[in-house]
Every structure is written in C-alpha cells, then in structure tokens.
C-alpha cells in the first residue's frame, strides 16, 4: 500500500456530521493511474469521501496524503466533477467558456487567457470530441456531450486526479458507453480516476478497482473480489441497519 505508486493515501479517516458518523476509520491507498469506483448504499459515505479528499470536511481522526515519491507527482492537482443536477443547464454560457474556467486557477484574476492557456483549452475540447459544438450553449448538447464538457474543464485544469460524483447518473446507454470509453483511454494514459458509483453492475463493467463503503471500509482492491456476495451483503445490510 505504501509503494511509491500510491498517489492518494487515506489513513484512519474519520468524518462526522455533527454527532452522526459519516466515515469511520477508512484506511485505503489509491494507485496512480487507476480507475477506482467508490461503492456502497445510500448514506455509505461515497460523496463524503470525495469531499474529505478535497479538504472540504474536517477530519475527526486520521489524515489524507496526496502525492507520491515520483518527482512529477509531488503536488498532483485534483479536479472535482459535480453531479449533473447541480448544474443549471439553461445558464447563458458556451462549451468553450466552461472549458476555459479550467484555466482560471492558474491565472491571476486580471490576466487574460494567454496562448498556452488557449492551446490547453483547444486540446481538451479536441480530446473530448467537442470541437463541433464548442460555440453552443450547454443546454443544446446531448447528455453525453454535457458530461464531457465538465471532463474537458477538468483536463484543461491540468489535473492528475479526477474525483467524480456519480458521473453515470442520468446518462442513457450510448452516453454511458462513450464515458466508459473515455475512462478506458484515460487509464491507458495513466490518469487517476476516483468515482462515486451507485450502480454495482456498471461499476463491475467499467472500473478495474473498487472501494466498498458502509461508513466503514468493507473491502477494497480488484473489483471482482470487492463485489463478492459476502461483501455486498455486509455493506448493504449494515447500511440498512445504520440508516
């Protein structure tokens, strides 16, 4: 677990909402360049785990370390993708303008986008096959294209670790296949993806690795082993008891 290839290390991570436990003593390592699904019943702490990694949840105990011994990974950048329903799709904004937002953190507030920034934006738009729709308002896109706009923004950010909250929710079959295809090619390019997924079948089909939660860690590792009948029973039964 503490090999140099572990880009994200959680040790004994414990989070509470008021008095209610949300995550209890989670210790897990995420290998660099892996596709990992965070699994579990509703209220198991999937979104909370993502928020804890982003540093939005105070930890009662434990710590989270990002980065590994590899010099290029000393300070990896995190990109977070919101759930689809959190976005106002009627907002007057074009695809390109959303992807450009990925460059904002690297710019001082009064600097315009430079040539290098625009190039990164163009590359992100091209990689996610949004070139033909880049001047469209975001409502006039298919569900799959809409999801890809926000992946492109994360790419333009130059992120190394992608944290996704239910990326497949609300997507139709074709869009789900498109997104699966993108994740597979990202895996080949060594990008690290960590996604909260509630659909176990989909997780089994798309993600090689899984982390199964029921407020505490039930299992982690290769997806087939994580989603064994015994583990699922434990996670989902404890989940119901806790809820």
């Amino acid at each position: 677990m503490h090999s140099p290839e572990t880009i994200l290390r959680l040790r004994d991570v414990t989070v509470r909402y008021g008095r209610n436990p949300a995550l209890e003593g989670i210790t897990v390592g995420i290998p660099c360049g892996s596709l990992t699904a965070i699994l579990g019943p509703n209220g198991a702490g999937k979104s909370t785990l993502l928020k804890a990694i982003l540093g939005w949840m105070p930890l009662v105990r434990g710590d989270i370390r990002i980065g590994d011994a590899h010099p290029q990974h000393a300070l990896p950048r995190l990109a977070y993708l919101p759930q689809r329903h959190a976005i106002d799709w009627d907002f007057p904004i074009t695809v390109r303008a959303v992807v450009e937002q990925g460059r904002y953190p690297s710019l001082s507030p009064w600097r315009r986008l430079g040539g290098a920034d625009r190039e990164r934006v163009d590359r992100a738009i091209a990689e996610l096959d949004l070139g033909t729709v880049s001047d469209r308002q975001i409502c006039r896109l298919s569900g799959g294209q809409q999801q890809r706009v926000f992946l492109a923004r994360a790419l333009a950010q130059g992120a190394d670790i992608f944290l996704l909250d239910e990326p497949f929710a609300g997507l139709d079959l074709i869009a789900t296949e498109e997104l699966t295809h993108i994740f597979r090619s990202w895996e080949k390019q060594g990008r690290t993806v960590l996604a909260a997924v509630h659909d176990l079948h989909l997780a089994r089909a798309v993600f090689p690795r899984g982390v199964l939660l029921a407020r505490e860690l039930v299992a982690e590792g290769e997806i087939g082993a994580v989603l064994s009948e015994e583990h699922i029973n434990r996670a989902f039964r404890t989940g119901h008891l806790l809820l």
Partner: protein
Amino acid sequence: MLSTLSTFFIAPFHYGFMQHGLLSALLLSLSGGLLGCVLVLRRLALMGDALSHSLLPGIGIAWLLFGLSTTALFAGALVAGLLTALGSALLSRLTRVKEDSAFGSLFLIFFGAGVALLSRLPTRLNLAHFLFGSILGVSNADLRLAAASSALTLLVFLGFYRSILLETFDPVFHRAIGGHGGIVHLGILALTVLNLVAALQTMGIVLGLGLFLLPAVTAYLWCDRFERMLSLSVALAMAGSVAGILLSYHAGVASGASIVLCLGAFFLLSAIFSPNHGAAGKVAAWIRDHRHAADTR
C-alpha cells in the same frame, strides 16, 4: 415633424430636474443591469424583491433621526436588510419554519413597520414618494450617491468578473479551486442594497428592483453568453429609463412606475417573441409537431 419630435424627446430635458432624474436613472441602469443578471441567474429574484421591501423601516428611522442624509439612509437600509437576512436564517435554523416562509414573513413585518412609521411622520415628503419614487426630488447628493454606487458596482464586476461568473454558474467548482463564494455572495447582496438606496429617489423602494430584474430577465431571453447578457441588460435598463422618464413627464405618472412599465413591456414582448427562448416559438413548434403527427397518421 422635427419640431414635434424635439418637443417630445428633447424639450423635457431643458429642465434641471429632468436632467438630474435622467442622469441618476442612467447611472443606476448600469449597476442595476449588472446586478440583476446575477440575481436572475442565481434565482434570487424573489429574495431581492423581498429584501427591497424590508429596507423601508431602516430608511424611515434613519430619516427620522438624521433627516435626508444619504449616508444615514444607506446605513439604515443596510441594517434593515441585514436584520431581515440574518433573522430569516436564524428562524429557519431554530424553528420548524423553512427559509422562504421565514424571509416572506419577516419582510412583511418590516415593510408593515416601515409603512406605519412613515405614515405617522409629520413630513413634507409623503409615503408614496418613498414607495414609488419621484423624479422631482433628485438632489446633487443623490446624484453623487448614484454615481458612486454605479462606479463601485462596475469596478467590482470588472475586477472580480471570473469569481462572479463561477459563483453564479458553479459554486462547487468555485470552491474547489479556492474561491471565496460567501464573500462574493455577500458582496452582491451589499451592492444590491447600496444601489436600491441610491435608486430610492427616482424609483422608490418598491419599484427600485424593477431596474435590476426586468432588464436582466429580458436579456436572459435573448442571450446565450454571460458577457452578452450583462451588456444587453445594461443597454435595456438605460433604454427603459429614458423611455420611462419621458413617459413620466408627458403622462404625469410617477417616474418609478413609468420606468418599470417600459421595462415590463420589453420583457413581455421578449417572453413572447424571443426566437429561441420565447413562448411564440415553442407554441409554433408544438402546433407544427401536432400537424405533422396528424398528417402522418
């Protein structure tokens, strides 16, 4: 012909009070047009409306204590606005009442208190003046406040354009990249209160928000880009102000009401005829689809 046009459009502005009124309305169109876009896109339109009503007792008390001092009026309005916002936040957390009901109830209480207070004051200015505005009353001090609040709003929008865009469009992403959403939110509310106070003379407390919301929601029906929505909203607010002030002069109606009516006409026409987001297009498409379905049956 030319002289008729000149009598209608130019002659009214030979009067000093009309020039003051026009200048003040144009200055506030700039800030109102910008702020209105954020309020509309963040779905704060009704809250802004409630907030504007709740400023009245603050203005009444300040006026009672300090007379027509612009600073005092602004301070009073700000305190009343903050009390309403904080009070409703507290009520919704400490009781069973939800935030919208808490806000709605508090603004009614505040507005009632304001009306009671102002109607009991022995004053030259009547209550209607505070509620609906009067172009006759724009003083040099009012003009200075309008210029200052307009300039401040423009500077904030130029300086923090990206933060305002991100906080309006995707507050979660804004936070993820280290943005200070709470400060942006509070800043927008404070600028709204400041500009409402500055609009008190021309527009009145009840109609002041019309100069913010109506041009913004009209621009929303036409624009698919944020920066274009901002520019169109400002342009519409200015056009509506000029038209409204002329209407006010010729028809002898309160300036706030006539400006709101002109802006309202822009909005209603756009809501029907905007090609991409208007009702007429939707209805036409619906009829076309049904005809097509009937033909193919």
